């Protein structure tokens, strides 16, 4: 990555990957306060979204360390913390 990560960038990438994984959400607004479960993303799709986002962000964080966040905002926060080591 050329510049340090920020939350907004991570949130935007997560939302793009959610839309890629669940095309049926087209036209429906998605915000950082939404949880993937409430958006209808299943557990395999959640992993798909996170792995695809991490690939784009060049982050290598074990999935087991990414349980717990209640919405997209919290997930972005956690990714940011973990990426800082």
């Amino acid at each position: 990555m050329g510049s340090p990560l920020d939350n907004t960038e991570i949130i935007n990438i997560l939302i793009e990957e959610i839309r890629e994984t669940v095309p049926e959400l087209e036209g429906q607004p998605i915000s950082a306060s939404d949880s993937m479960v409430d958006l209808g993303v299943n557990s395999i799709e959640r992993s798909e979204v996170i792995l695809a986002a991490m690939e784009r962000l060049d982050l290598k964080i074990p999935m087991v360390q990414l349980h717990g966040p209640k919405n997209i905002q919290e997930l972005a926060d956690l990714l940011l913390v973990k990426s800082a080591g």
Partner: protein
Amino acid sequence: MGPKTFRNWRICSLSKVPDDRVRIAVTGIGVASGLGYGKAAFLQGLFEALGVFSELTRHGREPAGGESPFVGVELDEPPNVLPARLARTATLSSRVAMAVLQEAWQDAGLDQVDPERIGLVVGSSNPMSREQALAAQRYADKLEFVPPRHGHMFLSSDIAGLCSSVLPIRGFSQSVDAASASGSVAVIQAMDAVRSGRVDVCIALGALQDLSGYDLHAMRSLGVMGGADHAARPGEACRPMDLAHNGFIYGEASAALVLMRKDLSMSHNSYGDLIGAGHIADGSRGPEPNSEGQVRAALNALAQAGLTAKQIDFVNGHATGTPQGDFEECRTYHSLELHHARINATKSIVGHGMSAAGALELAAVLLQIKEGRLHPTRNLENPIDESFDWVKAEPVSHEIRHALKFSFGFGGINTALVIAAP
């Protein structure tokens, strides 16, 4: 020491004719080939012997540097029968399978059947090789990002899984692998499932075998795939049973057939009845054909049907266009004395569908029964054996009463099916 016959063995029995009270009708067909999606395009293309061969251009089928491009047949994008969310997790083989299944399902009116009485057998052999190879390349140096869906979507069982998650199939589902006889073995397994009473309806599906560049190179090296000298004239490469044959030519394909207990199918349109099947191992490991095994499969199928070879009026060959395979198959026709029967080769028009071939070509047989006509054998200009009654460049009218369909696969697999007009 000479070959042992059955009677040398201390424990032996000749295969018995099974209980034939359960006669099986084919009441639904769905097809995909280079001729298009659906029965109408398939029939028209077969009778007109359309030319659909060209250079293979699908990503992942590029030839090695300096080698001539591969020649064959590639499908158009399948119709959208899946929700976008599922389609993005399904391989080409699975998406095409859903398209042919949907056509066959509607054709047979399966919405009226108890889902627990419907089974599904998918004939497939290494079905997603090209896409899996591309995925392995893409993630070669970043395995930590491999998408979770790749843990199931490249399994051959994923085709049956996807099909039964979209359509109400709740009897059983499975995949069977018999190399290029997979489609035919799926039909035979489906026949057994109906005959045994396990289900009343069983769908046999020949899955698209999505060959990678690696597979194509290996087939070329093995000496079984032709076309290396035909890049400029791809339409002339595929020539089963012709003196100028020099190997099979790949053709993407898939087909689904709905098999139903005849006594339950009275209100359904029937294309024909499956009245005999033979499926034997000849003891070969690799690609070598074996006429004795082919004859034994045919005799088993005829015995089950209660017929002799004399009563067969139409033969649809396995007929791939490999010199050794074609000659060996003609030896089989001689042994069975099939000189009186009309013979054609569907692969001459659509190429070799590999694991789909047996199912697609059975669909071709059934549609020819219904039409009362036989499709031409493309490029059959100088037959390797003039003593047989080949259908050459022109279609012919022919009322089929009893057809014999051969399908063979690497690994010594020989199958034969006997089909009767409804």
